[in-house]
């Protein structure tokens, strides 16, 4: 199989996030980037498919701080090739990212081999709607499934049967013809651990292909107006005392709200 995983670095929320001077971007001073959880699962799903069906896993990522560590870690886990797209001054919006990635993939495979599966995270903390995968599907004009939590390959690599997750614990199975794009919510197994010694070995033996990104002008559309930190609107009220007293207070609160 020809498995391509698109990786996107996102701000690490463990670090302090502040709004920058322009009021429309994050302050870069304490900003660190990491791979989002769904992207970690996309890598794992790709590796699981490779282990089951053979083939190669190619990683594509836009250059960002610490992206090399992420790529070498994925190579140490078993990915075969890593491509880093350079040249973007600041993180571009999702449509531009999708175009750049699509151009890169086309540069390697044109047309896409019939057994190609493109995986990416089904959302990212700066793309909660999960727009990346639909933009890519549009660019390649191939089928798309989002919020995927399991992938079976059938018909000798011509079809994928995927499990999608819905609200309320519902799950559905969908069939797609390959090539296809999947937005991965979670892999079938939790992402594996790769020891530092293997990552270091990968840094010595493996190589990251750097390519200049083809970055089109962003399409007209929504524009970011202002960024702000959430403001506390109210606080939780702690009810204290023995259980009887707390029960009385709960009844009082509910009565005040006309709920009982």
């Amino acid at each position, binding site marked *: 199989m020809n498995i391509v995983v698109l990786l996107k670095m996102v701000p690490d929320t*463990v*670090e*302090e996030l502040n709004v920058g001077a322009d009021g429309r971007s994050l302050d870069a001073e*304490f900003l660190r980037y*990491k791979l989002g959880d769904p992207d970690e699962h996309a890598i794992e799903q790709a590796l699981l498919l490779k282990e089951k069906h053979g083939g190669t896993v190619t990683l594509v990522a836009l250059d960002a701080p610490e992206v090399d560590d992420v790529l070498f870690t994925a190579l140490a886990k078993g990915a075969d090739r890593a491509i880093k797209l350079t040249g973007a001054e600041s993180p571009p919006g999702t449509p531009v990212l999708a175009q750049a990635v699509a151009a890169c993939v086309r540069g390697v495979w044109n047309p896409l081999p019939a057994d190609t599966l493109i995986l990416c995270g089904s959302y990212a903390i700066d793309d909660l709607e999960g727009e990346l995968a639909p933009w890519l599907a549009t660019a390649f004009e191939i089928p798309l499934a989002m919020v995927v939590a399991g992938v079976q390959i059938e018909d000798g690599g011509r079809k994928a049967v995927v499990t999608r997750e819905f609200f309320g614990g519902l799950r559905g199975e969908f069939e797609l013809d390959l090539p296809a794009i999947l937005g991965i919510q979670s892999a079938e197994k*939790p992402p*594996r*651990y*790769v*020891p*530092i*010694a*293997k*990552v*270091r070995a990968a840094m010595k033996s493996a190589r990251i292909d750097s390519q200049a990104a083809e970055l089109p002008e962003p399409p007209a559309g929504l524009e970011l107006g202002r960024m702000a930190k959430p403001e506390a609107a109210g606080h939780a009220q702690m009810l204290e005392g023995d259980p009887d007293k707390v029960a009385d207070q709960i009844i009082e609160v509910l009565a005040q709200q006309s709920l009982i």
Partner: protein
Amino acid sequence: MDPVQISLLGVPGRAVLWALAIAAFGVFGWRIYQLVGLLRQGRFENRFDRLGWRVGHFLRNVLLQPRIFNERSIGLPHFLIFWGFVLYAGCFNWGLIRGLLPFVPIPYPDEVPVVRLFLELFAVLVLAGLGVALARRLFFPPKYLHLSFDANLILFLIAVLMLSNLFGSAFTQVAEGSPATGWAPFGSLLAAALSGVSKGAAHSLAIAMWWLHMIVVLGFLVYLPYSKHLHLLASPFNVFFNNPELPADLTLPGAPAEISAGASRWQELTWKQLFGGFSCAECGRCDRSCPAAAAGFPLQPQQIIQKVKQHLLATTIDQPRSAAGSPAPSLIGDVFTEGEIWACTTCMACMNCCAVWNEQVPLIVTLRRHLVSQGQVERTVQDMLANLTRYGNSFGKSDRMRAKWVQSGGLKIKDARKEPVEYLWFVGDYASFDPRLEEITRKTARVFQAASLDFGLLFEGERNAGNDVRRVGEEGLFELLRDRNLQTLAKARFQKIVTTDPHTYNTLKHEYRVDGRPLEVVHYTELLDQLIRDGRLPLKPRSNGPVTYHDPCYLGRYNRIYDPPRRVLAALGLELREMPRHRDTSYCCGAGGGRIWMEDTADVKERPAENRIREAAALEGVRTFVVACPKDIAMFRDAVKTTGQEGRIAVQDIAELVWDAVENAMTPAKGATA
């Protein structure tokens, strides 16, 4: 009377002795050759250095066997049997040479009066020892003592050796009609009892006893390397080749990279790790001391050692013919379960009591290294390792939050990277990040300030020192953390390092090197002790106890720091009541070796920390449980809650007690001025 000058079924006695000796030594030698051949297939590890230390270690621990005496019932009996065995083995070889080589101008050993006396004395002492040993096995065996047929057979054979000597002495006396002699006190007694035996019969019986003795020893020689009593040959070497740096320093000596990937097959263990099983006497001391075994975790340190031996022999020289060609079982899965490998807290209780100085903890870490290299790590541990890789702490917090306790406590502390300090305080993860410990960390800082100590921190430059990381088996990450810390330390100016965390203390002290030299590291209990003795801390105690003190594994057993914390408690005027298990028999809280990051399995009977709190709660009048380790605060405060001891016993850090007394001394006395 020369026992060899007889004819056995028409064959001269000497020829028979030659035949028996060649056969026995041949089988023995072949087996030893095979065993050594197996060891040579293990990885090389240099245990041939520091010969002076080795000789001293050997003399003390093989000849005097102090660790055998750590269990009173069997201490003296084993000591007597051992020395009896040494004497008898020497005399056996002497007698054999005399018997085989008539031209050598020496008498038989028992023809020398003083030797005969010693042989008789030891025969009786050994028989008494055997009696105790057998009674212990039959009537009051301690838990985990391996009760094998093998062991009883050996006791029986040794008894035969002793009795054949005594009876031989007696029959010789009867046959020669010689008078009772002080050189053969017990032989003389027996001879008196056997005086009814005719001289001729006594002569034959004396010779028969000699032959019985020789044949049993030769049989023993053959049997020994096939039985658990190989320990008596192997353990002196095991002691000699011991590495005193283990397990405090798990640095792989001159290690090629593959060693950090651990062992998945026996050939990937070092020869010394393979050798441990040959030395194990199956006494069960390690199992009895193991907190994981007591808690019901699937770990018995003795089994770790034994399984290596059984696996090694069963897949090689003792492999049944039917099994030839079948795929070799893998170390993990077929021989060890993951559960037993992860259950170890690396508390070192096993290694501390092992009478043959086996090295269980490094072996377990070697197996863990393999699991880590395969990514087979529990989810919670993976998360911790990922946090440590990215943020340098196991809490998954930004490294810039490391010294938050300084600002939020309104403290002013020097930055050792910017100005020189005498003491660099390496705070460690728990004391820095755990909200339960913040206040204790601040109190420690205030105590240092009250003593006008010149100290500073690395602030966000500090990383986890890597003690637990290394013991979990993530050698690569340990090296990464260590290298980052060393880079930061190289920029700081300080004379000594102080830390409150015994795990950090151990690793900085033993596993870090700057230009090949170790760092000078002190534990805060040592520093507090020093400051108090120098009169730099004003103390006015508020209470006089009684309290009990828990020795942290990595401070006590690992680094033998037992007295400084006790002196601090004494200086505070606190009466110390020791728990039954204290100093080097202290009982692990269950957090070490990365266990603090792991889930307890469902079948745990009683967590080590709970067991420990119950031990303390049983002490009369003790309401304070003093610790000197940040992780102990976390572990034991939990255990106080889960054992329902809240309000009855409180866990306190020694720094809190010191701060109480310092604060009290610094506050102007109320009432005095009123």
